[in-house]
């Protein structure tokens, strides 16, 4: 053996079992909430390690992929694996964990940190009608940005709002991700064709592109590349594949309508 083997030193201070378990609980649940709500991989790893080291526990190892978190406190022989089934974008919860982690590094006591963590699950959501409405508004705004004509405005609004309604509505009953997007795109295609064929509509393509904007995985593609550039190749590939499948589902939904008409 050459002398290059790194020797992991024993911790300076030994904490009680309960204390370590509580810190472990906070760190791994923070990571889980971050991953389920759309944070980047490097931020999750950073936050979890930082929470552990704020409470004086060094040498914590984190491994995060889009579907699993493996977290170890090596000095205490503690390891857990958490499987993540669903991912969505809920930035309120990401902000909540960020706030918690900052307060912990400023010295928040353990018990109060656990209390605060448990309130993050009850993050405020926007009312359902507002979400649907903003889907419609997004459609209309993109119709303008993509140089559409004014006559097509109602179709873009109905398509955008209806697409989001179908997406969010079905998501409450089943989790079949790509099929939901397929049906939402199908609806948008039908709205566009009906409006152009039997109504005053003019530019079918622009209507459809504008109203699928709330569904398309643009942010996902960009995040996939960002993960890769930061060296998280696995996360980048998984997100890229998810984005490609979503785009195929939407393309298939609209394409089916175009072929049948």
């Amino acid at each position, binding site marked *: 053996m050459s002398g290059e083997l790194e020797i992991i030193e024993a911790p300076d201070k030994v904490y009680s079992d309960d204390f370590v378990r509580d810190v472990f609980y906070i760190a791994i649940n923070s990571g889980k909430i971050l991953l389920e709500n*759309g*944070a*980047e991989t490097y*931020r999750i790893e950073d936050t979890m390690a930082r929470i552990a080291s704020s409470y004086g526990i060094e040498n914590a190892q984190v491994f995060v992929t889009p579907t699993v978190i493996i977290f170890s406190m090596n000095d205490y022989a503690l390891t857990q694996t958490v499987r993540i089934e669903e991912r969505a*974008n*809920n*930035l*309120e*919860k*990401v*902000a909540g964990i*960020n*706030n918690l982690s*900052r307060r912990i590094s400023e010295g928040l006591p353990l018990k109060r940190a656990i209390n605060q963590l448990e309130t993050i699950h009850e*993050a*405020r*959501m*926007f009312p359902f009608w*507002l*979400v649907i409405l*903003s*889907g419609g*508004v*997004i459609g209309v*705004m*993109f119709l*303008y*940005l*993509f140089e559409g004509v004014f006559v097509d405005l109602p179709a873009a609004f109905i398509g955008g709002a209806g697409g*989001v309604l179908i997406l969010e509505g079905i998501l409450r009953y089943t989790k079949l991700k790509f099929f939901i997007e397929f049906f939402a795109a199908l609806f948008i295609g039908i709205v566009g064709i009906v409006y152009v064929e039997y109504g005053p509509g003019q530019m079918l393509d622009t209507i459809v*592109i504008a109203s*699928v*904007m*709330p569904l*398309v*995985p*643009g*942010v996902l*593609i*960009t*995040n*996939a*590349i*960002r993960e890769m*550039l*930061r060296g998280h190749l696995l996360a980048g590939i998984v997100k890229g594949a998810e*984005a490609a499948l979503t*785009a*195929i589902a*939407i*393309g*298939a939904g*609209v*394409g*089916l309508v*175009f*072929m049948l008409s």
Partner: protein
Amino acid sequence: MIYVYQLIASFFASAGFGILFNAPRRALISCGVNGALGWLVFYLFREGGTDPVLASYAGAILLTAMALFNSRRMKMPVIIFITCGIIPLVPGGTAYEAMRHVVMDQYMEAQGFAFEAALVSGAIALGIISTEMADSVIQSIKKKFNEKEA
């Protein structure tokens, strides 16, 4: 006047996505402003004849700088402002076009759109990361200066 309309449209598009992604309420307006400014830079560059890849890169640089500024000011993670702000730039429409042509058996057109989507999103990602890197360099230089003074 057209610039004002463009700003308004991209503002509401980004803020609308803020609602879809359940962004914190007090961040919504900054999200919209971020998106609008990023889009304005993109629009100006494209009007001037730059190709969309370079224009997206420029837009992403400005909006990330704004996002970093907002995240320090409001003490919120920078991802909130970036996710909502890149919405108008992101090539979702192009990716959809690519897939629609694939579904309709028009593979040659599909290729063009797919490459454009990949390049544009690569440019946006690069814009975000290069601003973040510049920011971390500036922050560490600031820190060193402060240590010297102390």
